[in-house]
């Protein structure tokens, strides 16, 4: 006998469905309407339908493609760096952490800081006259690089993002690594496998699902980056550090081009949907 009847199930689900329709469905419909309308802040309640001009404007805008390229590079590089460093730390520190679990707390601290605060913190830390990093570089070497100039801004942003979010990847990998039964490693060791071979042929294959999930979570987070980049460099000299999120924000608020901003967000949504749907199908095929 079923614990919950079909009718009861529907009843229990109604509030959730209602909530989703109200808070996700309604804005989505408004977005779709705005994206094919001429609309300003003065006419938010009375947009005039005008066809697909906003989409054409977005797709012909070199800044849109520039920001998409920035987000893609940023997302891939930071996800890769965070996963590689996180994996190394998880395996390297595992013996220590199993004996001193309290050490996890300080390692997780960067995750507790809001990304915008991290941006502001590095703005101070890297300032030539107020920050400790340039101060010591001048003391020791007589010079300090310009961390936020046009040549280094991208690299600095990648490092800042990686420093903050590597603990996230590390946490996932450490949990996955700890979950591997010890007897598997012991058996392979008895068979004469070296520590590197154990990592290569035992640990990594067993951790693969976690590695893939962590990489995509970090890629999505890096791709949609806004706060720390905006606080640290804004959109950058000549728009050189404009991520897609910053592009949409600027089109909406700075230019007042609401239709264009919303059209860009719809394009982003469609691209994300296709990628996620593809991944989902891939995962389904692997299970099958």
């Amino acid at each position, binding site marked *: 006998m079923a614990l919950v009847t079909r009718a009861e199930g529907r009843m229990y689900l109604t509030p959730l469905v209602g909530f989703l329709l109200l808070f996700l469905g309604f804005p989505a419909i408004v977005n779709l309407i705005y994206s094919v309308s001429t609309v300003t*802040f003065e006419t938010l309640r009375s947009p005039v339908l005008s066809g697909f001009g906003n989409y054409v404007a977005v797709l012909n805008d070199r800044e849109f493609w520039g920001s998409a390229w920035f987000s893609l590079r940023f997302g891939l590089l930071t996800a890769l760096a965070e996963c590689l460093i996180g994996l190394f730390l998880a395996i390297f520190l595992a013996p220590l952490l199993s004996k001193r679990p309290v050490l996890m707390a300080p390692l997780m601290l960067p995750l507790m800081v809001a990304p915008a605060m991290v941006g502001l913190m590095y703005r101070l830390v890297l300032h*030539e*006259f107020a920050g400790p990093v340039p101060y010591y570089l001048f003391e020791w070497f007589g010079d300090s690089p310009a961390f936020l*100039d*046009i040549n280094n801004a991208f690299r600095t942003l990648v490092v800042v993002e990686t420093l903050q979010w590597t603990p996230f990847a590390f946490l996932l990998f450490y949990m996955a690594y700890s979950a591997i039964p010890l007897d598997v490693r012991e058996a392979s060791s008895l068979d004469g496998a070296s520590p590197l071979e154990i990592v290569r042929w035992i640990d990594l294959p067993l951790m693969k699902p976690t590695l893939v999930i962590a990489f995509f979570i970090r890629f999505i987070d890096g791709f949609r980056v806004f706060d720390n980049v905006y606080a640290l460099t*804004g959109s950058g000299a*000549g728009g*050189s550090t404009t991520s897609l999120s910053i592009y949409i924000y600027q089109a909406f608020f*700075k*230019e007042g081009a609401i239709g264009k901003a919303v059209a860009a967000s719809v394009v982003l949504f469609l691209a994300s949907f296709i990628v996620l749907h593809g991944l989902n199908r891939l995962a389904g095929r692997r299970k099958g």
Partner: protein
Amino acid sequence: MKLNRTSFALVATLLAGTALPTFANATVTVLGWPGGSEETALRATVETYNKQASDADKVELLFFNREGFYDKLQADMAAGSSAFDVNLVATYSIGRYAPYMEPVDLGADAAKVFGESVLKTMQFDGRQYGVPTDLSLHFMYYRKDLIDALMKDDAAKKTYGEIAQKYLGKPLQPKDPDSWTWDDWAATALYFTKQVNSGSPVRYGTVLQMKNLLFNMMVFQSLPRSYGGDWMDKDGNVTVDSDAYRTGLELYKKLYDAGSSPKDSLSYEYAETNAAFASGQAATALQWNAAAADLTSTEKSPAVAEVTGIVAPPAGPDGRADHIHGLGLGLNKNAKNKEGAVRFLKWLATEDAALLYARSGGSPALSPDVVAKVAKERPDLVKLGEFASKYGYVMSGATSASALPVYELQAKEFTGYWSGQQSLEDALAHTKAGMQDLLKK
């Protein structure tokens, strides 16, 4: 059933308990400019006002963050927010916010306190939309000790002349900062640059604010203006591709490329510029007048406070020019307590309130008779009034609803040129095309 009734009664009592004090204390909520001297002065002024105001007129202050302030304000006002009765308004955003505000009559005495020209910084379509609380313009801050030493040293003067000839193609000699042209300033900046002159006592000759930020464009604007630059001519044609803008943009790039300004200048705005000048490692800085209090405070800037001189921005062929930017407070169309808000705004426009605001650290531009009463405590306000009346200007088209997007556009394109990502021709062509589009709206 009894339980339900009891619960209902309890909830009703709780609601009444929280709602009643709200009805009893209908206050005026004021959204001010966050951070800096403006917030400090407004807090002190409101404290005094609240001591004399009735309960219904008492003022509560509300502050966002400066980052994206105007965007958030626009979104709130467009949504018909009544979360505040009085809101901040700026000269360059009046056209943008006027549809969501109501004009306010400040009375005849306001003109005696501020002067007609300052009241105009808060007018749109001939109607008064706010009380002008702060006037912002730019000062040229310089190190008196360094300039004095340069003027007395013949060998240094010779080096100065050689550097001016090499970098600017002109045989210049050191001058008193109050009679500087932009070339004199540039030559001085180059002379005090370690990368150009290894004997310089400081690392940099100046601090340029070059971040892709609209406020930095306001600081830059006075350079091309003094060469006759304007956004539009009398017929409404965009003239940003003029020789005046070319000269200004090229001079900034020349100084940045020569190492006269910190390497990270492309990420510098107000705070970074203050920190650089206050460190004692820069000889000059074109910076907002609001920085005067900090840069001349022995507590906040011990390295430079006693040797910092202040003059108006240098001159070009058309004389000196100083970009005026007024901040003020006006009435939200959707205010819940309009009567109380108007009473507060009228009080804020009185002489007593303006003097209190000035003494509390604000920067109101006051008429000569009124500013004389605070001249001893706030000598910078005398300079503020003097520079505003002598050199103050507003670019043609700069109070339209598109003014802020124009500054944004210039910030993006000009920083693109300064950072070497595009040529001067491309930067000016993109700016002109964008401005034509924005200003015709």
